[in-house]
């Protein structure tokens, strides 16, 4: 679809910093907003603020008008999502972002994973992550056994809690919607979830323990 959005190159002046908020793809220098990457300029309007509540006996000042956010779209060649909303393209796992990863190795006190997808972007390289035993569940953290929560080869949905050290990001599955989303049984068949701690193999009928994510 031909859209006439103006293209910004890195270093292009977008406006003064007090007129709009800096979004992704921009930076501030000398009280001015500049573009950092090559892409179309998008301006998202903030939600309209509610007026002050009506009170007959008090005068309440109105909230300051919120500013719109100016950002530069990244990965424009990646295309738009089906419902028309533009997915925020990530390149790096960031703190509080939801990731999909594959378990590569389990140890008594941690599980090593390879982070494959951040948000809705498949990553370029394989970033290493770590799920420590105290981050597997929100409750009864001391009774967690890694062997009963993850197995090598499982696909896990987790959230990044820290940048970590030189080789690992730190992840957590301590939530109902986080945990194993795809698992293979010891016999080699794909399993389906039964409860928050069990996967069942449809062919052999055997159950295996996992920390299961709530399917939605």
């Amino acid at each position, binding site marked *: 679809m031909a859209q006439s959005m103006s293209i910004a*190159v890195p270093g292009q002046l977008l406006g003064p910093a007090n007129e709009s908020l800096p979004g992704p793809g921009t930076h501030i220098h000398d009280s001015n907003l500049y573009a*950092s990457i090559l892409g179309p300029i998008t301006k998202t309007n903030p939600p309209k603020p509610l007026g002050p509540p009506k009170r007959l006996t008090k005068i309440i000042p109105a909230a300051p008008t919120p500013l719109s956010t100016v950002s530069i779209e990244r990965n*424009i060649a990646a295309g*738009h999502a089906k419902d028309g909303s533009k997915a925020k393209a990530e390149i790096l796992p960031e703190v509080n972002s939801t990731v999909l990863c594959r378990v590569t190795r389990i140890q008594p006190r941690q599980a090593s994973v390879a982070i494959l997808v951040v948000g809705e972007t498949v990553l370029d390289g*394989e970033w290493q992550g770590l799920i420590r035993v105290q981050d597997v569940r929100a409750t009864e953290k001391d009774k967690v056994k890694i062997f009963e929560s993850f197995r090598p080869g499982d696909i896990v949905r987790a959230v990044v809690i820290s940048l970590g050290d030189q080789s690992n990001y730190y992840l957590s599955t301590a939530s109902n919607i986080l945990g194993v989303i795809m698992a293979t049984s010891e016999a080699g068949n794909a399993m389906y979830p039964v409860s928050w701690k069990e996967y069942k193999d449809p062919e052999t009928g055997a159950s295996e323990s996992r920390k299961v994510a709530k399917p939605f």
Partner: protein
Amino acid sequence: IQICVNKMNDRRRINGPSGGTSAPVYSKYLSKDTKDLSERPSRTRNSNVLRKMFLKTGVTPSASGSAYLELEASKSPHVIAPGLASLSTSGLKLTCTVHGPRPLPKSAPFSPHIILTTHVKYAPFATRRRRGYLRDASERDLGVHLETALRGVIIGDRWPKSGVEVIITILEGEEDQWWGDDIGRGNMGVGEWGMMSVLSGCITVASAAIADAGIDCVDVVSGGVAAVVRPGAQGKQSTMLVLDPVPSEHQEILAASVVAYLTSRDEITDLWVKGEIGHENHRTPNSSFSYEDLADNAVQAALGAHRVLIGALKETADMKMRRS
């Protein structure tokens, strides 16, 4: 001699003859009549005009970002054999690929900002004297200058614990002198002036590739080169300051400078000056250029490259948007 030593150290390949190879020049192209001899190509453009530049991004789809730059070769006034490569002067052809941001190797210490690595290499067929397959000192030097130029532009702290790699391959390099000067005398006392145009091209093409890869930068950096040349025969005092010098077009180059320039911030991230202009007290009225003049003119050349760069980047973005 430098290239010979390189070849002896490279035991992983079957190398060609260490003396270098060159295409044969058949005797019908050599003429005893002086008026038929090739003349040195002369600079036909004004001293402040740059060569036409071709810049295109997205040439390597498998990389995060890539770009290709080509500068036209200079034409000789009397062309004996227009197709014969050994009698013509070379232009400049560079290709650049950018990989990243990629995770650092596990052995690397934690870094809160991005780690930039640059790698510049002449292809073995790029220059008149064949180059080796392993990087030599001049290529490492170019890599260090390129890293200095790019380090000032990339916003590093948006990408913790990651690395970006910029790899430039020089497919056709700028010559240091006219091939006609080289007959019989060997490589005596010729400065490496070709490398300065190559560095200026490397900076521009790396900038285009990095913007193509979507790595945050404060500005678009462009490279420019200017030189002080002595156009007349030996003995004449007058010197000239030219932008975008082609070493084969000039009898003698006294000094040259390369800058990496940020246009919207009016900043220089890398400056390299080579040669002798002479002390202020000893300068004659005919040759009154200072090192500041040289750098200022190199900045003008970088502004010209910047215009081409912006045009190429906007074309890239248009193409990407039309495809989506």
